[in-house]
């Protein structure tokens, strides 16, 4: 039975970053600490460090993404790595090549790191297990989002943002709002927030968008926005994908916005200094009102900036620099 945590090596050190679920508190804090100095690099005229010079990083995207791929690419380039972008959804697997065959081919091109996005939960875990089983421990895998499972760098950049604006995690009440069922971001956020000792993590949404037994992840469930938002320090919005808006999960985007959309009036129920986060891309008028996006409490753009520093930290830590 394959029950060894596949992201740790035999010494218990981080070999891959696949999920935040089960990642120890100290490891998360150490990644956030590593990221701090990288935010300054972005302020410099020459935004480059030589930490990953000579390393080949493959952005292996089996699912379309511009934003996440771009931030990984920028992070890698600021560390002086060579970056190759592969949109596999349009190339080899379409010709019938298996996931692991694709990986083996790229390994033969001396890859040092894979940044993987895949529509199926667990795909990056499978790649990591495959590399381990074939003795290629020098190659690292970063999960850039797999199915509904995990999006660990997004979770980490969210934690970085919260720490930046709020400091101490252990006094916070955090609400995650929207489509938790289909969200890898929400799963990574919940794992990180609980690991970092946030005393109350809430999820708010209709029953159709909250998974069965979600309480077992250590969250409080709310269906009513007013009750759920009352007194929170951090509001984390989730994206609602178009294909979920009209059908058996939700009747219409209009009704969703009316009940669960974040407006200034609803936000007023949170603490006055509450911050509003969103992993992007945002749907104005669907899950969040423009006034909130453009308002003083939104920290959505700082999230993007911090995201690059956090990804630089993860890449440099995995590559052992």
């Amino acid at each position, binding site marked *: 039975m*394959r029950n060894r945590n596949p992201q740790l090596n035999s010494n218990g050190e981080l070999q891959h970053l696949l999920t935040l679920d089960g990642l120890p508190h100290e490891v998360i804090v150490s990644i956030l600490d590593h990221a701090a100095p990288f935010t300054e690099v972005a302020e410099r005229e020459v935004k480059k460090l030589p930490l990953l010079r000579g390393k080949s990083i493959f952005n292996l995207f089996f699912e379309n993404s511009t934003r996440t791929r771009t931030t990984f690419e920028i992070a890698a380039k600021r560390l002086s790595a060579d970056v190759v972008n592969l949109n596999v959804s349009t190339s080899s697997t379409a010709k019938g090549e298996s*996931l692991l065959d694709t990986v083996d081919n790229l390994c033969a091109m001396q890859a040092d790191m894979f940044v993987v996005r895949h529509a199926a939960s*667990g795909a990056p*875990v499978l790649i990591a297990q495959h590399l381990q089983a074939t003795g290629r421990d020098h190659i690292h895998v970063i999960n850039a989002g797999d199915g509904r499972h995990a999006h660990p760098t997004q979770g980490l950049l969210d934690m970085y943002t919260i720490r930046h604006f709020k400091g101490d995690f252990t006094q916070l009440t955090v609400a995650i709002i929207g489509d938790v069922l289909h969200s890898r971001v929400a799963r990574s956020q919940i794992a990180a927030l609980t690991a970092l000792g946030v005393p109350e993590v809430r999820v708010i949404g209709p029953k159709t968008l909250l998974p069965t*037994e979600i309480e077992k992840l250590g969250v409080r469930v709310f269906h009513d926005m007013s009750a759920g938002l009352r007194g929170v320090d951090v509001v984390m919005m989730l994206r609602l994908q178009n294909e979920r808006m009209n059908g058996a999960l939700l009747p219409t985007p209009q009704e969703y916005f009316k009940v669960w959309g974040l407006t200034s009036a609803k936000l007023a129920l949170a603490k006055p200094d509450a911050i509003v986060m969103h992993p992007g891309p945002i749907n104005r008028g669907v899950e969040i009102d423009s006034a909130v996006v453009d308002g003083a409490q939104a920290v959505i753009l700082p999230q993007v900036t911090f995201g690059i520093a956090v990804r630089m930290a993860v890449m440099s830590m995995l590559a052992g620099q």
Partner: protein
Amino acid sequence: MKIRISNGRVIDPANHTDSVEDLFIANGKIIARGAAPDGFAAERTLDASHLIVMPGLIDIAARLREPGFEYRATLESEMEAAMAGGVTSLAVPPDTDPVLDEPGLVEMLCYRAKKLNCAHVYPIGALTLGLGGERLSEMAELVEAGCVAFSQANVPIVDNMVLMRAMQYAATFDFRVWLQPLAPFLSRGGYAHDGEVANRLGIPGIPVAAETVALFTYLQLAKITGARLHITRLSSAEGLALIETARANGIDVSCDVSINHLLLCDQDIGYFDTHCHLVPPLRSAHDRDALALGLAEGRINALCSDHTPVDDDSKQKPFSESEPGATGLELLLPLTLKWAKEKNLPLTTALARITSDAARLVGITKAGHLLPGARADVCVFDPAAQTHVSREKLRSQGKNTPFLGLDLPGEVRYTLVEGRLMFER
């Protein structure tokens, strides 16, 4: 060939006997137990001291993958596995390619199996053509060709009117209808039990309601049509409770469980172990415990391997893209022994679930017991030895099992089919 199996502890669950005695075999039959018949001169004597002698196992669900999936397994490879596992009779589900919906195909399968001269094969015919859930198969012809029951394998009928008609038609002849409780829309797009583990891993879930809602329908239709209903591969405590309620209301329904669902639960998926991708999905630990108890108390009638050899390539994929199923022919006995040990069950009770009880479901009368006159299908195993589960040792072409790497109790020493010694170790 005349064979004497001497000094073994002979367990015959059908007749509730468990004692050290000799077994005498001639002309493919068991001719005596205890004292040798007059003038019996054994051509071969198998010393079974410290070993257990039992009827050959009857596995009511084993996919041999022929025809159509020969890259996953062949009759040859799986028959060898059956012999190594002490399995002398097996019922095969109709989900081959083409589907077992035509008398000619069933005859060919029986002919091929007979030619190999190993385990006896009992085909289960498709209830509807191509398992398509639209047109009835030629059930009467299929039974003549050798089918012992009719099923939809893991492909549920969407149209309940067709299902009712199929059950009515089968009931006309008193044919057995074996159904997997799987509501089509509730199970669609799911790959694991809808619970904490699937939620953590982000695997789309299959709710228990996929089983219970289907059961409500099947049980109701059995009541109306009078069909002889057997429920295959139960996965949940609630499903079992529904069956018991139906029985209390006078509906005659039997059910079985697989070795996987008896001993594993969704937690065993660990980090996306695709060997635990099964149909139905592995459910909670609570469900597993309820099934293990239900089988011990006989509320679940039989235990099967649900043997499904899958090639490595189809397993080395992300969980939801991988092919479901696990190999199990060679593990049926060791896992039965493991369950018996955990439940502290007498062996006569435990072994009944894979011999006499299973025989009853398939309608086998001349095997599954050890009375004189029975077909000499016999399994002899060493209860003190262990079966180590490894890719190298498995004879099945499918190496896919969640039990890889484990040491399980018991090891088969001899397998006899109709008095022929087919396997020894």
